[in-house]
């Protein structure tokens, strides 16, 4: 049962006696190269042809920076919202049995399956100033459709399953005895949740956040309908890339894509490192 703490430094984990290590490693590398590495290096290659000065000019262009800010900002907010409510949804699905629980459980996956454009159009119809929800919000001075708020709502919709589906299995594994022991030690319900349950779920929640965030940054279909796409206000980076492509300005499109890629990679790497650290600590 004891697991020795992993030693620092780079080392191959000793493969087991069951054969297949060489084969599967070779396959994985070839597959990742084919599916991820080659297309992405093509992207870098294309933008490198641009030359450093031009690249920098495109990347530091006001419109590009605004689009990046909107993309990463809204994705971050949406992922944060999803962490809170996705965790609650997962909790309800795991902890309680009620009529229709299975249906609710299946519903969580719908944003995965629905064409994103359909989601975007549906949300726009609801939140437009004359839509069902939009018409209720307009008198309060809240404008959702055609603003960054609309983008956030679309991304919340798209990202929910990522949080629920990563947190749910870990939540199911929580030992009831851990809660019971905390109660016998005098902890009230709030203390049990905040001090015992949530810290145990933290790695899964971080993963869910990372997935929802990454998905939000790259999301295109649902956002362009609800965003209004006003440059400097509600224009997301993926849309800007498409605009550049339609102008036959391939270099600019790849430059924006490359910088998005770099930013996403750095953020996901940081999240990954945080996870490795917490896993090492808590086993």
């Amino acid at each position: 049962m004891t697991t020795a703490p992993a030693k620092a430094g780079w080392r191959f984990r000793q493969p087991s006696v069951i054969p297949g290590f060489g084969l599967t490693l070779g396959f994985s590398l070839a597959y990742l190269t084919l599916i991820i590495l080659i297309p992405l290096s093509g992207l870098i290659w294309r933008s490198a042809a641009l030359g450093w000065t031009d690249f920098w000019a495109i990347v530091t262009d006001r419109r590009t920076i605004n689009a990046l800010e909107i993309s990463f900002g809204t994705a971050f907010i949406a992922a944060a919202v999803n962490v809170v409510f996705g965790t609650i949804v997962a909790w309800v699905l795991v902890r309680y049995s009620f009529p229709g629980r299975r249906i609710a459980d299946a519903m969580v996956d719908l944003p995965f399956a629905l064409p994103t454009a359909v989601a975007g159009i549906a949300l726009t119809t609801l939140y437009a100033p004359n839509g069902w929800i939009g018409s209720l919000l307009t008198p309060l001075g809240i404008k959702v459709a055609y603003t960054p708020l609309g983008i956030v709502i679309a991304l919340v919709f798209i990202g929910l399953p990522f949080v629920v589906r990563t947190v749910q299995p870990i939540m199911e594994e929580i030992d009831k005895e851990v809660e019971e022991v905390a109660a016998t030690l005098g902890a009230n319900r709030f203390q049990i949740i905040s001090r015992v349950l949530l810290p145990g779920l933290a790695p899964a929640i971080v993963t869910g956040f990372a997935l929802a965030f990454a998905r939000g940054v790259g999301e295109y279909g649902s956002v362009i309908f609800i965003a209004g796409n006003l440059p400097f206000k509600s224009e997301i980076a993926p849309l800007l890339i498409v605009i550049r492509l339609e102008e036959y300005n391939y270099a600019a499109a790849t430059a924006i894509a490359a910088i998005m890629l770099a930013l996403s990679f750095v953020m996901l790497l940081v999240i990954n490192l945080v996870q490795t650290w917490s896993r090492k600590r808590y086993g």
Partner: protein
Amino acid sequence: MEVRVANVRKEFERFPALRDVSLDIKSGELIALLGPSGSGKTTLLRLIAGLERPTRGKIFFGEEDASQKSIQERNVGFVFQHYALFRHMTVADNIGFGLKVRHGPSRPSAKEIRRRASELLNLVQLSGLEKRYPAQLSGGQRQRVALARAMAIEPAVLLLDEPFGALDAQVRRELRRWLRDIHDATGHTTVFVTHDQEEALELADRVVVMSQGRIEQVGTADEIYDTPNSPFVYGFIGESSSLPVKVEDGQVWIADRPIGLSAPHAPQGEATLFFRPHDVDLVEECNGCIAGTVAASRRVAGTRRVELEIGGERQRVEIELPVDHPAAQKTRVAFRPRRWKLFPAA
């Protein structure tokens, strides 16, 4: 603190897990709940802790009715078989948890909590492991941490649910002795659940034998072993052999022969005779004895266990002989139980 269980019944979805159980636990006592799976022993422990609510009946801590109190208010220390340590906390944080979640003036300072944790680690012989995480400890060490955590809150009663069940035999024996020492040193009223009779008989001041949601017998190890009060206890505790017999004219009969045991107070009619396989006298000439043909003979550690077929119905019983006893070579062996008990046939 004294604990009194009064006429408690517990049903799970109409299925009775405990039927009308009453038990008095004295202050400072170390008591074992012993029984097979499904006997209700864990349910009884969880009811005392407040992890379940009784369907009927009450549980008193001292003079106070604890049945109305929440788990948090009961102030019990509970130790689970699989430790249930908080994985994301260090050993010291695990032990200090019960003190940290207190409110207001009853909550000690952070420094005091740290001091308490080290003191308890010292008591459970794990000094110096404050900063470790549970994943870095062995099973035996984890269970000690769990016990230290339960004792940190100065519990009214300490409840252990199969505390050594997940550990291997050697660690188990070691921890058993160690738990006895800790109990003698701290004097907490302690109730532990086990299905291991050796553990119960060796460790506990008193043993509560349970079966099918009822308490069969309560007593010291000697009382339970030497004077079992039901066929179940006779069969469950230690080795036993049984034979269907008949009581007539104050004598015990097998088929049409008296076997030399007189039972003047037993009711007439069918009965079952119980005795311990090692508690028999071999007899040479059989005028009033149990005689049978040797069906099998096995060497078990320091003794030889001989299986005999008795009478026309070839009822099998086991007796134990010294390894070098000549009777083991014979085909026919006669004996008379030294100590025995009759129960009316069910």
